């Protein structure tokens, strides 16, 4: 198993443990990633999957600056896990650490790929509704787990609201929520 995966797993397990101590209901939002005949939750699957070297799949992130980031990742990992575990240069993503309490891991899928994804829960849809630049093929990365049949998919990282941008383009149909 790679040292990186082990380190990340231990770090995230430590964060999860510490956070779980303070936040007892945190686990309720972890996606159930079903691969083969077993179900496992985020964190554990990083360790067990890295032991199964044959399940690597390529994923391309089309970043906000137009650059493409390609990474080989393990099936079973959530797309947010992939960004975090591989330390990808995608900023400001995963503020709530994958617990369906924000929309910062918003990703836009190709239509054909989107149709293949698992069912979207009401809870995910509720948070997705708050995402800037929401599209019909949007999902939250923390709720989508990588599978073999998603090999080669391209994920578009959408822009976030930013007044510093000179050309403020598309107005989202979703106004930012008020507290």
């Amino acid at each position: 198993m790679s040292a990186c995966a082990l380190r990340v797993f231990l770090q995230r397990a430590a964060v999860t443990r510490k956070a779980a101590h303070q936040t007892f209901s945190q686990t309720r939002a972890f996606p159930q990633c079903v691969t083969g005949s077993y179900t496992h939750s985020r964190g554990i699957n990083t360790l067990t999957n890295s032991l199964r070297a044959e399940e690597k799949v390529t994923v391309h992130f089309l970043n906000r600056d137009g650059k493409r980031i390609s990474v080989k990742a393990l099936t079973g990992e959530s797309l947010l896990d992939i960004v975090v575990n591989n330390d990808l240069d995608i900023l400001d993503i995963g503020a709530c650490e994958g617990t369906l309490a924000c929309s910062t891991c918003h990703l836009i899928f190709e239509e054909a790929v989107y149709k293949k994804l698992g069912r979207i829960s009401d809870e995910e849809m509720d948070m997705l509704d708050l995402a800037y630049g929401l599209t019909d093929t949007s999902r939250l990365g923390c709720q989508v787990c990588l599978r073999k049949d998603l090999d080669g998919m391209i994920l578009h990282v959408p822009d976030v609201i930013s007044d510093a941008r000179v050309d403020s383009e598309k107005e989202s149909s979703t106004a930012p929520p008020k507290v």
Partner: protein
Amino acid sequence: MLTGVRGLSSSSGPRVCIVGGGPAGFYTAQQLLKARQDAAVDIYERLPVPFGLVRFGVAPDHPEVKNVINTFTQTAQHERCSFHGNVNVGKDVTIDELRQAYHAVVLSYGAEGNRSMGIPGEDLPGVFSAKDFVGWYNGLPSNKELHPDLSFETAVILGQGNVALDVARILLAPVEMLKETDITQNALEALAGSKVRRVLIVGRRGPLQIACTIKELREMVNLPNTRADMLPADFEGIAEALKDLPRPRKRLTELMMKAVKEGGDDKAEKCWGLRFFRSPVEVLAGADEKRAAGIRLALNKLEGSGESVRAEVTGQLEDVDCGLIISSIGYKSIPIDPAVPFDPRRAIVPNEMGRVQDTAGLYCSGWVKRGPTGVIATTMNDSFDTARVLIQDMEAGKLDLSVNKPGAQAITALLQTRGVRMVLFSQWEKINAEEEKRGKSLGKAREKLLDVDEMLKIRNVFISIFF
């Protein structure tokens, strides 16, 4: 403007001061540290404890929203960042003194006031701002003596944003749902003995203008042992409007309509309802004239369309009997220091993309910059914007980095001569550990310390052990 000649001061890079240790302050710091490997960032916070509304605003039953604290902790522990708690900027140290000690100062102190309803009877006992009520159950030291009287059957909340729904949910949630959270023990006990059974959440405009988001509404709909009590008349014409709505607004409206139709279990002990087209005009006192016993609402009609729909009075009035009135119509920033420009109408610091108007070297981020709306992620994006603008100004030479600035050294020396007892992050960690320990013995995530003096005592214990 001199282009920064940093030869003399290259050993000490830009020094930035951030006023306010909540999400805006921490996210601004995070971005600055990342963008400049030579920047040192100091955060000053009025309370001994950090994290602002993440600690004092987010509802106790939303612990996952507080995960951002992990990121903030990492920022505070960064070698080029230092946190100074229990420092009241504006009183213990002035903005001018900070501007002298730092290359740039960022105001991220949020909105500690609240908008008032501006109606007669608002000051009667039994009327609270949501800010204070939330502060009470979340352990904000200045709200620990609130003692809201929960012995009345009906509570009326004015405002229909997420804060209003949080208050309604905390008032009606079964105690089992709350007893393992970080809600304060005295709030938990008060709620366990509460007689409140009916909560009305009142808004000026109609269902299509409701400001809350769907997650919070769904939590009300799913609340155990409660049923929804809506007025079908408030929803006239709404079904027809559904098809033209964007998806988020459509789903939110559909959920409300489902609640109107289904209502819920008639045997449920408690109920909650949304009331639309109603504005408060007077708080009515009881027969003894000593406390609130009801609220008088004016009925509105809507004029205009789309985003600019307005409520206009019809002249009709409606009285609602209630013993608890909570006004949740918005937080409000206040001026921190006479040296800082302030727009009293919008209640923000006037700025252009985070650069404070007419004041070089002064910036702002978060609610004090944009107004008190938005979730944590909104503030995150906004803070990153301010940080980027500040970095741009550094690189364009708009801030003179060639001048050596003493930073925290000078300010902490000044504070010491003034008898201010600062709390460093490592000392907060001691307070944090104590809160977790006390919580554990009560079966809770934590038991917050409510008293600034007690927090400072814990900090002192830490000092005396190690020095």
